[in-house]
């Protein structure tokens, strides 16, 4: 699994394609949506969690799609499938890689989000970190599985969002609700039901993905 992860990082260091597309789409989404609200309006603060998650999810779809396109060139995924490793661990390596790329992009997009939406610098922002992390893990768990299926289809750019977005509705609801309450000053303990939803979703899809990845990549 570490060899696979290192290979993905090596390719990304060289091409910077996944990070660049994650950053560009994330920043563009934030910029466009920030113009929709009056800078002095209270609505701007209320809409901030939803905008954050829309930016995360849109950029994430693009990043996850790209991570499997590198496996498509020269049929490299077939080469990996020939290796005597458990195919579930190939899936887990992809999930970890995608989470690393999305978190890295968030390190840049996050501060810009705070600036655009004029959010006060407080502990509430730190409390967003576990929520975003849990959401991204769940998103990558489902996304890596569906990207493996859609990458071999002709309409892969359309197919992935079509398969993925309905499946990650619980992540979106849990993420937006928990983020909104935390930004309103609530403690993490007050949003435990949403955190439990995200945790349960992550655990469920990591296990399902690990079990069915072998069949998802079969011809």
């Amino acid at each position, binding site marked *: 699994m570490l*060899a696979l992860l290192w290979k993905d990082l090596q*390719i990304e260091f*060289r091409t910077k394609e996944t990070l660049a597309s994650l950053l560009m789409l994330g920043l563009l989404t934030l910029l466009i949506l920030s113009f929709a609200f009056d800078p002095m309006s209270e609505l701007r603060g209320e809409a901030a969690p939803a905008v954050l998650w829309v930016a995360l999810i849109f950029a994430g779809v693009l990043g996850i799609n790209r991570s499997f396109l590198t496996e498509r060139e020269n049929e490299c995924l077939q080469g990996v*499938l020939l290796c*005597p490793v*458990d195919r579930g661990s190939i899936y887990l390596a992809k999930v970890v890689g995608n989470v690393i790329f999305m978190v890295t992009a968030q390190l840049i997009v996050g501060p810009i989000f705070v600036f655009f939406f004029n959010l006060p610098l407080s502990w509430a922002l730190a409390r967003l970190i576990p929520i975003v992390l849990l959401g991204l893990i769940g998103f990558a768990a489902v996304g890596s599985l569906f990207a493996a299926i859609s990458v071999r289809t002709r309409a892969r750019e359309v197919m992935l969002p079509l398969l993925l977005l309905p499946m990650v509705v619980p992540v979106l609801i849990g993420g937006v609700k928990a983020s909104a309450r935390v930004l309103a000053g609530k403690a993490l303990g007050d949003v435990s039901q949403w955190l439990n939803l995200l945790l349960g979703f992550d655990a469920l899809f990591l296990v399902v993905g690990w079990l069915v990845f072998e069949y998802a990549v079969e011809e």
Partner: protein
Amino acid sequence: MAAAAIETRGLTRNFGGVPALRGVDFTLAPGEAVALFGPNGAGKSTLLRLCATLLRPSSGSVKIFGADGGSGNPQVRRRTGFLSHQSFLYPDLTPMENLSFYARMFGVADPPHRVHDVIEQVGLVGWANRPVRTLSRGLEQRCALARALLHEPDLLLLDEPFTGLDVNASAILRAVLDTAHRRGAALVMTTHDVAQGLASCRRAVILARGKLVWDGAVASEARDEFERRLLAVMQQPPRAAA
């Protein structure tokens, strides 16, 4: 008695209801070399992909060194090297990086040393640190061969290995295959070039329309019969999709 390198019984594989292989019975002894002939669409690549565990049979069985190859068994994959039409190499990585990655994936002992060895063996020393994307088709094919040989497999599956190679590279490939064969590796090679195929293998198999139609040693007395059958098969009209 040692288990056969490959043993298929009634091996059938369909793609969307169209049969690519139809009830193939085929056995290959450890250390044996066989050339697989047949027109396009005969099922040669499908047979190799089934033996490499990249495909599951629709029916029938495939055993590799006695182990079930139909279930993607990691032990089967550890003993098998597969050279396909595609190189399975990451274009943005160099041959050195690609081979180091695959060496770690196959659990090769002392990967740097082994990678250096195979790079030298296939004559890629001058290109080892250039991205695969910048290599010619022939050089990429040599690197793909190095990938297939990296873990010293007991069974080599080669799908048209001479495609895209110049005279020098073909000679290197033949030498590398001879070395692997002398080491005791069994070898299955698909090719359209009768001379190349029979230079490396004493046994030949002809597949036509998903069925095995000829299987035997190509000694001088059988050579005429083999060539007659192959010519007849090649002149058949292509199979229409069902």
